């Protein structure tokens, strides 16, 4: 029996991916898939892609059931999103849950935003070991038995000792003839990267701003992970002082009080210095804030830190400014004034609202650095 289902399945997956690509903006804007992320897979709700047909509408129809219950007893919930949702312009409200690997998702993002492949910085100094089954050993488990080589050994021995009879070519291996596959360790040189996220958590950054940062971080992670074999992620939050935190804290903490951006840059620099030698690592610091800084004095300190230290060690330094009602946005202007629009290793991006996320991702990653 021959089944052609694999082909049909691949075709279906291709259509789904096309659909996601087409609606990428929607997914990015609503951050719909981020909550449904596993280790390697994301589950994405795709609007059903059923074939249309003439039919009655579900709600009107009702139906027939069986079992206990009085008139008026509920037997099932309606669409949970009914009410909030307007009448859709798509046929049907059913969604299909599709699993995509992060790699596939990154490909979609890359194709849709026309992101260039990142050219890692020169040195492939990072060594990783990989094991390949290319060797042959005289000992080993039966599951790794190498049939051909064993046969050959036996044949050779039998011919040499004159036991072999071409008219009755019986081959009987003895223990000495057995050959097994075995592994060799190869050393591969790889590029590794670290992303250092910094975020302003002072009073003026609200939940909506953090949501935007979280969404951006997800997509940046996804893309960079597809470009580098190994990725480290570090998180720094700051108001007037900076500290390193885990991912969860990073997105949830809200402090009040002033903002000294330089504190974060200092900490960032320290982390790089202790853990990530620039010769071995591709380094990506991302800083998100609403653009408020305590003083011009501190801003000058920041610029100083950037120019003298950080820019020397980073592939690229990204600053994303999330619009908030309370922020002045001054920091963006200051950076822009100093570095201009097309600086080699400083990328500035303004994110006005959720709709702006996609463009901002493109700003950051579009340079291929």
């Amino acid at each position, binding site marked *: 029996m021959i089944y052609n*289902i694999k082909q049909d399945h691949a075709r279906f997956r291709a259509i789904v991916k096309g659909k996601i690509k087409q609606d990428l903006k929607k997914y990015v804007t609503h951050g719909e898939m981020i909550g449904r992320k596993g280790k390697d897979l994301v589950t994405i709700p795709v609007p059903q892609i059923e074939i249309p047909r*003439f039919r009655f509408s579900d709600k009107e129809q009702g139906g027939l059931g*069986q079992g206990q219950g009085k008139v*008026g007893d509920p037997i099932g919930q*309606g669409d949970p999103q009914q009410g909030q949702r307007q009448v*859709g312009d798509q*046929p049907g409200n059913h969604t299909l849950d599709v699993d995509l690997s992060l790699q596939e998702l990154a490909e979609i993002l890359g194709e849709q935003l026309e992101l260039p492949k990142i050219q890692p910085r020169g040195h492939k100094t990072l060594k990783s070991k990989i094991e390949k089954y290319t060797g042959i050993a005289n000992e080993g488990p039966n599951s790794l038995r190498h049939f051909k080589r064993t046969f050959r050994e036996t044949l050779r021995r039998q011919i040499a000792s004159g036991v072999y009879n071409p008219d009755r070519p019986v081959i009987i291996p003895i223990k000495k003839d057995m050959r097994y596959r075995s592994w060799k360790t190869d050393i591969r040189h790889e590029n590794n990267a670290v992303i250092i996220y910094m975020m302003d958590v002072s009073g003026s950054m609200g939940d909506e701003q953090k949501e935007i940062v979280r969404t951006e971080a997800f997509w940046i992670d996804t893309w960079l992970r597809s470009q580098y074999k190994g990725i480290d992620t570090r998180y720094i939050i700051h108001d007037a002082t900076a500290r390193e935190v885990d991912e969860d804290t990073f997105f949830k903490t809200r402090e009040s009080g002033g903002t000294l951006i330089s504190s974060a840059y200092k900490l960032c620099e320290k982390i790089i210095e202790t853990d990530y030698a620039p010769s071995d690592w591709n380094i990506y610091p991302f800083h998100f804030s609403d653009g408020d800084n305590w003083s011009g004095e501190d801003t000058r300190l920041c610029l100083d830190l950037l120019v003298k230290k950080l820019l020397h060690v980073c592939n690229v330094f990204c600053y994303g400014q999330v619009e908030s009602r309370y922020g002045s946005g001054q920091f963006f202007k200051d950076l822009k004034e100093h570095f201009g629009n097309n600086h080699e290793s400083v990328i500035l991006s303004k994110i006005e609202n959720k709709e702006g996320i996609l463009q901002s991702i493109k700003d950051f990653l579009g340079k291929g650095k």
Partner: protein
Amino acid sequence: MSSAYNNSELTSELVEVRDQIRGYAEEFGLDFFEVIFEMVDHEEINSLAALGGFPVRYPHWRFGMDYDQLSKGYTWGLQKIYEMVINTNPSYAYLMKSNNRVDQKTVIAHVYGHVDFFKNNYWFSKTNRKMLDTMANHSVKVRNMMDRLGRDKVEGFLDHCLAIENLIDPYLPYSNPKKRDLKNLDSEGTDHLDPGRFKIDRQYMDQYINPPKYLEEQKKKMEDQVRKNKKNPSDSQKDILAFLLENAPLEIWEQEALSIVRDEAYYFAPQAQTKIMNEGWASYWHSKIMTQKALKDSELIDFSDHHAGTMAMQPGQINPYKIGIELFRDIEDRWDRGKFGKEYDECDSLVTKSKWDKQLGLGRKKIFEVRRVCNDVTFIDEYLTEEFAERLKLYTYAFNRRTNQYEIVDRNFKKIKEKLLFQLTNLGQPFIYVTDGNFQNKGELLLWHKHQGLDLDIRWARETMRSIGEIWKRPVNVETEVDGQKKLYTYSRGEFSEKFL
């Protein structure tokens, strides 16, 4: 070094089981095609299920989508397919390898029930029993088209065809249209039309034997018919696929693709029309064969567990297995005890009725008759009784906008039966006819939705019209009713418009 695992033949143990079960089935009077059993693993059975039971189908993504859903359901342990059987001669039945022995026994008995139904039920009598070959031919044809024209183009067109695969007339293969002379009337002028007179011997009787009024009516009828004959189709036609095949400006490959979709739709139609009966009949027999013949004491628990799982009802859904088997048993019981006919119907003492037993013993004969002549609609219409609905605790439900819930509405027998019949008639889908292939004398297509109380889902209807537009290649109109108002929807070159009539 082929291992037993890759072998799709029955194990010798199961061959024994099969022979035994087949023997019992024959003893009970079941009459089936030869059945070829194959053992398959979960991946294979999911593929087969996605492909409608046929190992070779034309390539299309929707099979892949179904496969995706089925394998997920299997991986998550939500559902498992025990067997599949297809309506061909000989029949092929696929058994899941992982079934335990009792499952296999039950499932083999179940399969013989299905095959007996395929062979003997009237509504299957016109199906193509060599469908395996036909499907394989379809596959080759579509693949050739794809090689020639590109996969996207062909698949895109198939999508459009599949959007209207339900617009066929399942009764067509069984209708034997009377030759109507009127059909052949010439369309040139109406003067020569003569309704014909009876011969008269006496002049004065003429106005009684050939009343002028009646002659006038007849002539008018003929004139109407002549006018109709000029129209295409002359009468509204339910087989829209056939109409498009004959009248749409299709290229040869498009015609071929559309006709493939139509052939397959007609092949599968009887299965949808007899879902309740078919599953009921097969379940009736697996239960009968197992409990009366094949079951060993040690297997009782496993069998009961499997059987109960199959028969389980969920709120808000009816289980065709359950309704079917219960109804067959009910019929058998009624005909055994003579609980039918005028005398029984008119008896108004509940006590007498419940004790009614004329010891006729006609039950077995009756259910065999029912399995031969009925489809789901006539099965329910004829045999679903009030006592039965009550015993099975049937109810109707509806959506309550205010609470955003589905709620039980009624346990009234008439309402239940009405609802059930409505869901089964035309497979619960709207009746759509083509009424004019030259609408407004502009070569537009006019479809008519015969409104029977429920409005169309307009969003779906629009998408469907778009697909028909791709086939018809001219504007497409649908006449329907929305909230009691007659409306005409038009699709023309990517644009939709609507107006009240």
